[in-house]
């Protein structure tokens, strides 16, 4: 197992470096000089060249990348142009809120997904299956930012039950797990949960159907095992793949939260990314994307390892 883990980690290193390269290049694919974004419109030629040297934009790109990577490894992602604060601390503070949202959404989405998926798999081609798969397909097809708006219309505008925006009373204060705060979490979490719900339902349905049609299930039943015991075998066989899918979904929720956080003004990494884009705050843009992508890579690594831990067949391949 240790050898497997080490091998996986070695595989991840080139990915991490390439991810950093992509994040670095993001700023340089912009037509023109990255300085244009920071420079006042009436800046003199002299100021421009001074700034170019100060930011290191005069050096060759590979050198710039090396320096940037070296600083990033040491936890220095530069300073936000808009606020002047260190990018890393800005991102980390925001990521905390996104994690809160993603975990809440995962609890809703995964529970429902597992439930619907098992139901649909067990009662394949019956009306139960049809209802569950319809819910799943609606979940993966709905533009989630629009669903967020519709939920706000129903529960905030018309019924006035839940707040429409923000993450707690009186703006973005400290988060707490009490109803005063959870009220703010309900709508964004439900909105975020529909895609993972749909995907987990479809995965688990396919897995369950597949496993139930295998010979060993027949053998277990022939042996006289009770259906609850057969069910345990189904769960055990479905678990590795289902877990991998759920791990990936958690990663998508963390990294893809920008639309929902924009709809609900949820002060997470997505909202930060949004403001970085529109203020042309390039260090913040670069840093946020780098941190989120690394989170995603790390989560994938964890999923791989966890999968190998519960399913020994994976280690051997």
């Amino acid at each position: 197992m240790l050898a497997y883990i080490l091998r996986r980690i070695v595989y991840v290193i080139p990915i991490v470096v390439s991810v950093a390269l992509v994040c670095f290049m993001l700023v340089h694919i912009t037509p023109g000089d990255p300085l244009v974004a920071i420079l006042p419109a009436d800046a003199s030629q002299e100021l421009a060249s001074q700034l170019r040297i100060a930011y290191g934009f005069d050096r060759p790109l590979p050198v710039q990348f090396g320096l940037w990577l070296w600083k990033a490894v040491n936890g220095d992602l530069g300073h936000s142009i808009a606020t002047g604060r260190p990018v890393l601390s800005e991102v980390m503070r925001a990521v905390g809120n996104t994690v809160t949202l993603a975990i809440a959404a995962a609890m809703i989405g995964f529970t429902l997904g597992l439930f619907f998926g098992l139901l649909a798999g067990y009662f394949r081609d019956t009306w139960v299956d049809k209802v569950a798969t319809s819910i799943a397909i609606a979940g993966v097809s709905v533009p989630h930012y629009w669903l967020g708006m519709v939920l706000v219309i129903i529960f905030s505008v018309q019924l006035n039950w839940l707040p429409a925006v923000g993450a707690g009373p009186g703006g973005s204060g400290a988060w707490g797990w009490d109803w005063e705060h959870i009220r703010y979490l309900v709508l964004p979490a439900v909105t975020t949960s529909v895609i993972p719900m749909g995907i987990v339902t479809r995965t688990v349905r396919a897995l369950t159907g597949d496993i139930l049609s295998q010979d060993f299930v027949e053998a277990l039943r022939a042996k006289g095992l009770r259906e609850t015991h057969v069910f345990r075998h189904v769960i055990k066989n479905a678990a590795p793949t289902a877990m991998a899918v759920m791990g990936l979904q958690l990663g998508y929720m963390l990294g893809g939260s920008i639309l929902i956080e924009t709809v609900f003004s949820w002060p997470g990494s997505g909202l930060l990314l949004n403001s970085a884009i529109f203020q042309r705050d390039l260090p913040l843009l670069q840093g946020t994307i780098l941190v989120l992508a690394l989170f995603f890579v790390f989560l994938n690594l964890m999923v791989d390892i966890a999968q190998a831990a519960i399913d020994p067949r994976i280690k051997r391949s």
Partner: protein
Amino acid sequence: MSISPTSALSDAALQAAPSSKARGYWATVGRRLLRDKVSVACALILALIFLSALAAPWLGLADPYQGSMIRRLRHIGTAGYPLGTDELGRDMLARLIYGGRLSLIVGILPVILAFGIGTSLGLIAGYVGGKINTAIMRTVDVFYAFPSVLLAIAISGALGAGIVNSIVSLTIVFVPQITRIAESVTTGVRNMDFVEAARASGAGPFTIMRVHMLGNVLGPIFVYATGLISVSMILAAGLSFLGLGTKPPEPEWGLMLNTLRTAIYINPWVAALPGAMIFAVSIGFNLLSDGMRSAMDIRN
């Protein structure tokens, strides 16, 4: 000179054998698809949305750009405005139908482009194998290290707002996904006996790829790409919703949703209409992709 008739014959045989078999297969798939009520319904609804977007100027609709300050945010069902008016008093029905033009182009074009690029890359990687496979597939892996929403937004955020940029960024997001599917299907087909037989009979790599592989590989990729349109519609409109895609005053569903957001306290259901269009197209392509997948699975 003596070998030319033989090679022409074998060429003709190579062309004829798979294509006549392919016709039979696709005819079967088509028949099965037509029997599936859900797929037919989806195809009809999508066709209606496409055709009305295409024929918008001849449908006698109001001017989608013509606003009126005194007729802002009329409710659904107001006389003369069957679907109400938007925040600048423009007719919603006209804007939703005209909006289909840009929304569908921005949503579908990236998938078509990625289909072309990704299939070629995957076919080459899967067929040639070796170092070329490693080079292509490891590059693809890098893009898989980003959640697709994040990658799309990162690239269009860096490139700046605009229709072309959002098409470019979505294409970059989808190419790796299609390449991966194409590569794995190609690798599977490559090791089959009939490909070995073609190689033994002296067919060159391009003939094999074009004649023997493409027909067998395209089906699964096509099904995947159809489902991908659903994701692409949501993401493309999402980019506009964030302000990274289409610019006002163009009618486009994502952008309309964005500008109408402030109106949800005044006229909520009119504000929600553009999203319903995105949802309809997205779920239509998803169901169609599912229908095609089961229609192509002849063994069942």
